[in-house]
């Protein structure tokens, strides 16, 4: 069943277009990574999907409803981000006590166990948590709601290394026990790649591709070898990334296709994270061009 259906979704702010043209569909019970560079429109897209802001044009459907101002969507989806705030007067324990009233599938046991594992102080106020602890608490909250559509916007921002891997592990375990649609945005694809089934890559408010992780990994290949040989092999092909290693050797990333093996040219696979980086890079030379 389709959980999210976006058709030519646009979101315009006063002076700029945050989302230019977003078209994709999300099937249920998949973990999808929403990948993109800073300012690509990830947060805006998630806010539209959560019903926090209204699309400027186009069509967006979550559970077959327009999410904006929709109770059904609100009751079945949650967006966990660093802007999440709770009343100043409530302690963390109070918040966890209130939540089941709103979320019918709230898993109190999971919430308490995670709460204890991460050693949060139940008497603390949400507003006064440190950045990392706030992210941890929000994550616990988001997981425990068991919402059919659970969205995380940069969930690991501020978390330390250990908590990050714990978080990803907790997310996976809970997903295995209770499969649901999960959308995680991040710019650290590498650290959460293993969790993902699909990748939705957006750039400048447009969808670049929406593919399974394995397809993304096979999207491109890298050739490395003597400049003249590499240039001959890649002539007339779409070059995603190039780098002059030294005066004789060159490193070029192109779309994957069957290439003849040539003596002296090494062929490497390109990681999903690098694919996303190269595809969304408008400057083919990368940062090195600046220092030429």
């Amino acid at each position: 069943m389709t959980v999210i259906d976006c058709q030519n979704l646009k979101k315009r702010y006063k002076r700029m277009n945050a989302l230019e043209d977003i078209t994709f569909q999300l099937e249920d019970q998949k973990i999808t990574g929403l990948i993109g560079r800073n300012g690509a429109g990830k947060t805006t897209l998630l806010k539209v999907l959560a019903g926090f802001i209204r699309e400027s044009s186009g069509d967006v459907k979550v559970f077959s409803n327009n999410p904006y101002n929709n109770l059904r969507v609100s009751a079945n989806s949650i967006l966990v981000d660093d802007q999440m705030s709770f009343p100043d007067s409530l302690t963390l324990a109070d918040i966890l006590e209130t939540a089941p009233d709103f979320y019918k599938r709230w898993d109190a046991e999971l919430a308490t166990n995670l709460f204890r594992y991460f050693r949060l102080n139940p008497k603390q106020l949400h507003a006064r948590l440190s950045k990392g602890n706030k992210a941890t608490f929000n994550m616990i909250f988001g997981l425990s709601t068991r919402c059919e559509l659970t969205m995380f916007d940069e969930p690991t921002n501020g978390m330390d290394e250990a908590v990050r891997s714990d978080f990803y592990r907790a997310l996976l375990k809970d997903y295995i026990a209770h499969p649901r649609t999960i959308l995680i945005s991040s710019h650290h694809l590498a650290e959460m790649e293993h969790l993902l089934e699909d990748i939705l890559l957006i750039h400048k408010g447009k969808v670049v591709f929406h593919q399974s992780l394995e397809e993304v990994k096979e999207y491109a290949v890298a050739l490395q070898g003597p400049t003249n040989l590499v240039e001959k092999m890649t002539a007339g092909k779409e070059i995603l990334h190039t780098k002059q290693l030294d005066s004789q050797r060159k490193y070029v990333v192109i779309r994957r296709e069957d290439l003849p093996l040539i003596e002296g040219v090494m062929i490497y696979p390109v990681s999903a994270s690098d694919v996303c980086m190269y595809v969304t890079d408008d400057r083919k030379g990368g940062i090195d061009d600046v220092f030429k």
Partner: protein
Amino acid sequence: MSNFAMLSILPFLGILFIIWRILRVAKSTSNRFNWSQRLNKWVLYIYVGILLLAAFVYELISANGDEIVAPKEYTMLKTENKVFQQAFENNEESKFDPNFLVEEWTQELEGDTLEIISIGSNFPTERLNIEWTDSKEQLVEVKMYKTHSYMDGINLGEEIPLSKIEIKDKQIILKAPPHKELTYYRFSNELAALSIVDSLDVREQRRVLGYTYIYLKVPKHINVIDKDGLQFY
């Protein structure tokens, strides 16, 4: 009206601003302290408890006077006062309400002059009237009356001291009681601000002011000197 309204709005804006600041500061400080929800609840319980207790205790406190609620009763009191005053002015002694009589006595005069002197107050506090009789004797009849005085339900008749009347040979000295201040508190559940016109009326209705009346019966041949002009004519 416009200027008046402007002037009355300024202090209000001042109060508004002050309370606004207080609430802001209170909010930020309460954020700093870990003011728990349980403490909040207790504050509210205790406050409501105190309010209810106060309402209960108030019923037990003894108070002055009895509130006369019905305006009818005030109207009745007022009419009685009015009737008396009219009769007093017209020298119709037969119509005087005997309930208002405080004192009466007869005094024998020596000469044929009678001087009426008022002391103790800049402003005469009594009202005086003289009925001339045809009697040839030297007897002067003195009657002192006091009409109803009520204010907001208190029977002031008992609280306000009477003038003293002394008669010495040829003089009647009316001594006003010493200056005295009485302050009463009364409480109202109503919002005076909303019904300001109404409440002034209501309060005017609730006020019945009586006087001390002195009625003299003096034989015609006696000469009365009334320097202070106490008499009705």
